[in-house]
């Protein structure tokens, strides 16, 4: 797994949460099985961008993904309207996936905490290479479950056995048949 430098943001003293260096498979599986609708902050309209890949893959697996991108508000990605902010999306959200930098994650997290009760948000997920322990601490204090420096597409594929098809080390040992997470 990529080691991400832990930096102080917003002038706040450095926070390091060692429990976020790794996550039990069962924690990730439970989140991915439970989440139905999530917002992707930093979704791209461009089909070559990694966020587009992740959105397309997870949509196919049965998630509803709401794209958030202030520069693209009103456009559509994969049939979903793009919203300029979390607050502008009128419906319920189970999770927010941050596809922005570690530094930007702090302000986005504050938006998530503000919108949490109204939208029913339970999980804050930061993408692979995105880690902000200060933001995670605030989110956890607000009652959110936090995952950092992971990609939900890669974790879904890993736990479903699909990542292994490309020779990637899933770190799973099991004598049970691999099954899709959502099945």
């Amino acid at each position: 797994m990529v080691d991400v430098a832990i930096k102080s943001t917003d002038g706040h003293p450095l926070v390091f949460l060692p429990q976020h260096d790794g996550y039990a498979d069962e924690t990730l599986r439970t989140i991915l099985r439970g989440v139905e609708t999530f917002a992707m902050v930093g979704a791209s309209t461009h089909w070559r961008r990694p966020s587009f890949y992740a959105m397309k893959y997870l949509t196919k697996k049965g998630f509803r993904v709401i794209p958030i991108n202030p520069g693209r508000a009103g456009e559509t990605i994969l049939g979903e309207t793009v919203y300029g902010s979390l607050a502008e999306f009128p419906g319920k959200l189970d999770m927010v996936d941050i596809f922005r930098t570690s530094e930007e994650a702090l302000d986005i997290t504050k938006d998530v905490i503000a919108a949490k009760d109204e939208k029913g948000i339970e999980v804050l997920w930061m993408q692979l290479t995105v880690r902000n322990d200060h933001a995670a601490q605030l989110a956890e204090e607000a009652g959110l479950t936090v995952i950092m420096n992971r990609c939900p597409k890669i974790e879904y594929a890993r736990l479903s056995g699909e990542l292994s098809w490309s020779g990637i080390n899933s770190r799973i040992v099991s004598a049970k048949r691999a099954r899709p997470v959502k099945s």
Partner: protein
Amino acid sequence: MNEMQRLKAQGAEPALPTDYGIETLAVHAGARPDPVTGARSTPIYQTTSFAFDDADHAAELFNLQTFGYIYSRITNPTVAVLEERVAALENGRGAVAAATGHAAQFLVGATLLESGDEFISSNNLYGGSVTQFGVSFKKLGWNCHFVDMTEPENVERAMTDKVKFIFCEGLANPGGIVLDLEALAEVSRRHGVPLIVDNTMASPYLCRPFEHGADLVVHSTTKFIGGHGNTMGGIVVESGRFDWWQNDKFPSMTKPDPAYHGLTFAETFGDFGFTMKMRAVALRDYGPCMAAQAAWNLLQGVETLPLRMERHCANALAVARYLEAHPKVAWVSYAGLESNPFHALAQKYLPRGAGAVFTFGLKGGYDAGLKVVDKVNMFSHLANIGDTRSLIIHPASTTHRQLTDEQKTRAGAGPDVVRLSVGIESIDDIIGDLDQALDQA
């Protein structure tokens, strides 16, 4: 969301994934019961191609937007099990198998080197690799600087702006030399290039180079991983920890790739970007894929890697001690012997044993050496290592034949050298066979 509320209520804390022992990984990693039939042994997917669900599914697969099989030149379910198995044994992130160890080395070059680029290699290498790097790669404009890496500062001296990686065999063929991987990793880190270790001779049971700072590992799986002398194969394993963005030396990883509709592999695939790049471009375009049947044979072999390596190493040490005490033997180069100059490094990097391949020389020189090769009965005279059977060869006239005399001596394959790959037979029979041959030499 009820399940998640239950998890929270239980106070379940995130934890690191379980670390399995290497004996467990050798049997299980990458292989689960077949999802459709429940078949417990990995099936041989003897097929060239895989059916698409519809046009959109096909397009997603070709775009690398979803995971799945297209064509066995690129991925195959049986081969994928071997790839994940070896990646797990090496504690790496991902792996790509190839038809042979030489093909695996070629795929590394094809992924990291442009024509005109350079790399630095240890001169203590399998002779075939010396020729591949020094002669055949040169025709592609890939320029290799060979240095003696037993002195890591030699690498520093050979470094140029065009060098893209450092390559070595940690435990070198034909034997007896162990390199200081951590010192070499320090040089590679300082210059922002990956350290690539050929781990064929040690196998991941004896040494895991990623734990000492290596970034990529290559194997000829033909040798100890397969272990039975019946199947060709190679593999490249990625640690997932090399930062391709730290400098501008790796445009093939960090710039949009014209061979893949402008995809940037290190960005899209993160810590397994190299594995995806090597597979989707180098393996796809040059085509030296591993066959499904070969992968299955190698999977059979790798399950017993820990058991075999224990016996290989115990037998090799006993043979080396026997030879060291034999009046007709001039020298023995086995890092497991206390008298060997690399013994301390072997204890550090190969604590479970110094491997099963080593060399010795007879006081009678070239002629006596050839005599031993001719007079053994159970030892097979052939050009391979890492077989269950004990093997013997005279490198100067065979595996290292294409090298100059100076290169031969530097590679530990001088005119008097005899190489053994000690098998897993009864130790008394192995020593007995050598004993009767030495009597006649």
